[in-house]
């Protein structure tokens, strides 16, 4: 029984995918580990300096820093040695590399510099729900609407197609954050319909009350629009091409010849064209996440992107790397979810992997 289940085609397909994602994770983690080591300069020195400067805004280290420079030098040295030990930089490189994984799996991403002494993992887990609340609905809505519109344009042809094609093309190439600026100008500054920034008003406490939900939605609409419209444009563009391809294929000509109704033809074409669009969605996910980082920055929306932006401004390297790792992890998980859906929808996967048995 179990043996049969393990050999099921869907399972084999997903197993291959899991291996691929684990590999992708290893590659990206290796990059994050490698990049600072390839760059000129001493990363620990940089870290110590930014901690001293950063904590100087409110911490006792900074206060002493201005009082007696000699004390700071001593303290900086202590801090330096502390971090050399903490990151295991006194050990050989392969141990350092393995230590990174140990830190990652124990959730120890280090302390944030700008929010010192808060743990990076806490800062991120506070921001993550906001990002997901923005990204996941935007992707789902954008994908569905984009495919329907794209299929419509491809099927209709003529003037409709020309107009829609130009619109999709333009919309899909707009920089997300520029479109965000335009939305803020139109709806927040000119028309005063929606607020320009933040995820909820100052003074409103996040809870499940009616006031908060309405306030949240008001803040939600503009960032959501700026993401969803561009996803629609990109998806529609891909779907339109796919539909034109399918409608021109031999099986379509054959179906037309044997006199199938138009409605049936379109349904066949759509079903065939939508499959590659699922793969397309996985790929556009990466670009949507990239866009979201900047969109959140423009709206001051308290998600991972905004955290990353602030971390860049404050040279908070542990936080930059932590956000990067979490972003990658999220993208990989979402990719995997789409693979599961794909495995169940596409009959060819069952056929291919059944054949390999």
């Amino acid at each position, binding site marked *: 029984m179990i043996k049969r289940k393990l050999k099921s085609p869907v399972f084999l397909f997903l197993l291959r995918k899991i291996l691929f994602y684990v590999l992708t994770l290893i590659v990206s983690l290796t990059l994050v580990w490698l990049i600072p080591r390839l760059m000129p300069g001493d990363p620990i020195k940089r870290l110590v300096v930014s901690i001293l400067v950063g904590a100087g805004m409110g911490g006792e280290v900074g206060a002493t820093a201005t009082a007696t420079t000699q004390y700071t030098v001593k303290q900086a040295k202590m801090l330096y040695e502390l971090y050399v030990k903490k990151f295991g930089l006194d050990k050989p490189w392969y141990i350092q590399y393995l230590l990174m994984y140990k830190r990652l799996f124990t959730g120890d991403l280090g302390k944030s510099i700008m929010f010192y002494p808060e743990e990076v993992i806490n800062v991120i887990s506070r921001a993550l729900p906001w990002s997901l609340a923005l990204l996941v609905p935007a992707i789902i809505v954008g994908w569905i609407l984009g495919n329907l519109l794209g299929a419509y344009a491809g099927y209709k042809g003529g003037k409709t197609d020309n107009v829609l094609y130009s619109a999709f093309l333009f919309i899909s190439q707009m920089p997300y954050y520029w479109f965000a600026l*335009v939305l803020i100008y139109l709806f927040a500054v000119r028309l005063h319909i929606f607020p320009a920034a933040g995820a909820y008003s100052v003074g409103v406490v996040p809870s499940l009350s009616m006031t908060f939900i309405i306030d949240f939605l008001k803040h939600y609409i503009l960032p959501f629009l700026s993401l969803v419209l561009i996803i629609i444009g990109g998806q529609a563009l891909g779907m339109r091409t796919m539909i034109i391809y399918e409608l021109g294929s031999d099986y379509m000509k054959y179906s037309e010849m044997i006199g199938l109704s138009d409605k049936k033809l379109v349904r066949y074409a759509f079903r065939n064209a939508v499959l590659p669009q699922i793969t397309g969605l996985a790929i556009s996910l990466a670009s949507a996440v990239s866009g979201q980082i900047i969109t959140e920055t423009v709206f001051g929306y308290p998600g991972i992107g905004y955290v990353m932006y602030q971390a860049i401004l404050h040279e908070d390297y542990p936080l930059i790397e932590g956000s990067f790792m979490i972003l990658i992890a999220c993208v990989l998980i979402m990719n995997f979810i789409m693979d599961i859906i794909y495995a169940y929808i596409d009959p060819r996967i069952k056929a291919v992997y059944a054949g390999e048995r």
Partner: protein
Amino acid sequence: MMKVSKTRLKHVMGIFVRYKKLLIGTTLVLGILLFCLIGRIVYPVNPRDIAFKDLLPPNPENPLGTDVFGRDVLAQIIHGTLNSLRVGVAAGLIATLIGVIIGAVAGYFGGIIDEVLNLITNTFLVLPTLALLIVIASYVKMRSEWIVAFIIGVTSWPWTARAVRAQVYSLRAREFVDLAKISGLSKFEIIIFEILPNMLSYIVMCFTLQMAGAILSEAGLSAIGLGPSDVVTLGIILRWCIVWEAPRLGAWWWFVPPGLLITLIAVSFLLLNSGLDEIYNPRLRRGIR
């Protein structure tokens, strides 16, 4: 002699008339280029000069008004567009070069080399490039436009690698490759002198896509403050608009033009790309109506 070149010209013109996307794309690209080159001569205002009152709306002296520092927006746009294009071309070249090398080697050699290179390519395709760019760029303190172009180039090659691999894979079974093998050419010689010249049009198409992508990437990187630190690009202008909250200042003349131009540049490269695609790929021609 004369007659030959005339029919040739007619043929080329005919292509442009038949393939509207190519025509529009080429016109837009040339138009934008001319706008920068002629603009610099006709409108010799220094984009860095704080020579005017701040936040002036469009007026006869400053056709696109001034920014929050009192710098002329049109001058910034003219210089910014040219710099953005330069970053785009440089990054596009780097990405295309890396992509072609990896794709061609993977596609021609096949086997384990192909598997490994394919795996690497797919890995990079899944990663959100901007996040990777941010991590790299945040460690580089002095970012000239060339360094930014380089960073973008080395992170955006996977698309090209994948496309080139598929093409090479299908070309390597053709007769002319067999012929080259019989005549004793080495594998690399076959790739460079036989296969790649046969797919030059395809590589050019990849390059146009890479340029469009690179210009958008530069703008994105600049928007969060990791763009080039030595020149004005369209992304850098948008960066200032974000930092100084141009929408809230009501300065539409400041933030609308740079974004519009970025979009226009990307669109025209894309049109160029799909126009070329229509010429080489007859199955798509149903799309032109």
